[in-house]
């Protein structure tokens, strides 16, 4: 279908974007890569009056290391992350996850900030933000505030973003030497949203796991941190009995629901399979999960 009528305007500053958001309220939508928004307009799932194209805001572009953080500007495209040496060296979790994210033509336009703002529970970036202790930098043009990813994703497509705020960037604390990452997922067709996926971060020292973050995508209304599995694996080596205990604890951690294609029981099973693969990959760095 074709999109409904709307007006289109470009801004070059956060303040201008915010003043349009305040003026039009719910009738205005920020347009970044458009890879979700334009699809929903074509399906007439929403009918905004004005689209505010923010891609000209220079301050929201780019990847940089500063003050102990890796900063990913909100307008950084998925493909920029895919090609970034800096990201591959400093936060390889993102490099591992990006090939699973949609298709090349969509990665060429879709942005990191757009994905985090949309907060699809099966999307890769929200789960990675949670697993790598990301902090969102939000601005209303005058004030900036920082929100941990764990507090940002509230419920299905619901975030802590205020109606007059933009995501400016996501900042990740630079991981220490022992920190390792693993990402894997299962989808019906390569590039589709995941049925179930997993992002893991942990310190590995002498084959022992510590300070784990285990985050699932596709099994709840938000990215889901599996605290039970983390407890079962922290301080352990990952032998079969330990892994079995961690998988058993997933029944407390996640509560997937049936969808058109996959039952809740199948998703729970797949979550266990992915946990096992991710832990193996974490312990044997370099192996793809």
């Amino acid at each position, binding site marked *: 279908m074709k999109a409904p009528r709307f007006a*289109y305007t470009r801004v070059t500053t956060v303040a201008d974007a915010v003043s349009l958001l305040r003026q039009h309220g719910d009738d205005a939508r920020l347009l970044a890569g458009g890879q979700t928004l334009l699809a929903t307009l*074509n399906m007439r799932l929403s009918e905004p009056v004005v689209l505010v*194209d923010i891609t000209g805001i220079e301050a929201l572009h780019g990847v940089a290391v500063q003050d102990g953080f890796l900063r990913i500007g909100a307008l950084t495209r998925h493909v920029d992350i895919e090609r970034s040496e800096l990201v591959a060296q400093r936060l390889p979790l993102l490099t591992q996850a990006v*090939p699973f994210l949609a298709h090349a033509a969509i990665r060429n336009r879709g942005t990191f900030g757009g994905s985090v703002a949309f907060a699809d529970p099966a999307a890769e970036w929200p789960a990675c933000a949670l697993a790598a202790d990301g902090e969102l930098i939000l601005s209303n043009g005058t004030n900036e505030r920082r929100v941990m990813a764990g507090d940002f994703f509230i419920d299905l497509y619901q975030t802590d973003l205020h109606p007059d705020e933009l995501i400016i960037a996501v900042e990740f604390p630079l991981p220490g030497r022992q920190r390792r990452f693993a990402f894997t997922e299962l989808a019906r067709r390569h590039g589709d949203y995941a049925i179930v996926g997993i992002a893991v971060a942990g310190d590995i020292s002498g084959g022992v796991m510590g300070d784990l973050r285990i985050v699932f995508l596709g099994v709840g209304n938000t990215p889901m941190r599996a605290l039970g599995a983390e407890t079962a694996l922290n301080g352990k080596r990952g032998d079969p009995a330990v892994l079995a205990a961690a998988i058993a604890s997933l029944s407390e951690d996640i509560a997937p629901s049936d969808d058109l294609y996959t039952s809740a029981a199948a998703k729970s099973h797949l979550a266990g399979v992915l946990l096992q693969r991710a832990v193996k990959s974490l312990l044997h760095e370099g192996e793809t999960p």
Partner: protein
Amino acid sequence: MTDKVLTRITVNGVLHERWVEPRQHLVDYLRDELGLKGTRSGCEHGVCGACTVRIDGDIVRGCLTLAVQADGARVETIEGVSDSGEIADLQHAFLESNALQCGFCTPGMLLTADALLKSEPAASREQIREHMSGNYCRCTGYHAIVDAVESTRETRRLAGCGGDRHE
């Protein structure tokens, strides 16, 4: 602000100045305003890849891009890359491998495959399959398409020009 927007887009090397409705997709702009019908409109929500074109060298979905967003950009369509001969080898391989039947998906397939062969000149069959997974074909069953891309990879490799353009 709801009015048409003056848009300057360079399509296949020619600058076009048009007043366009903000809601007009790039694919409809190309087909309806400029009469370039090679780019197809299929699902109109980003799933099938029939609308693939290049903006500033990168492949994108023409149905998930507004014409006004392409203001100031360089757009290339299947017509442009056919006329220049840039993908003649790939087109020949599609023909040889029976990689098209009705041809609806073919312009998108060609531009998508070419993007991979330029960025990954040594792409494996598996990489080709993954990269092409965002493009639907309702006729061929895909194997012939993957064959054609693989054989073009080989011809380009033998020609020793890696990801360079064929002129």
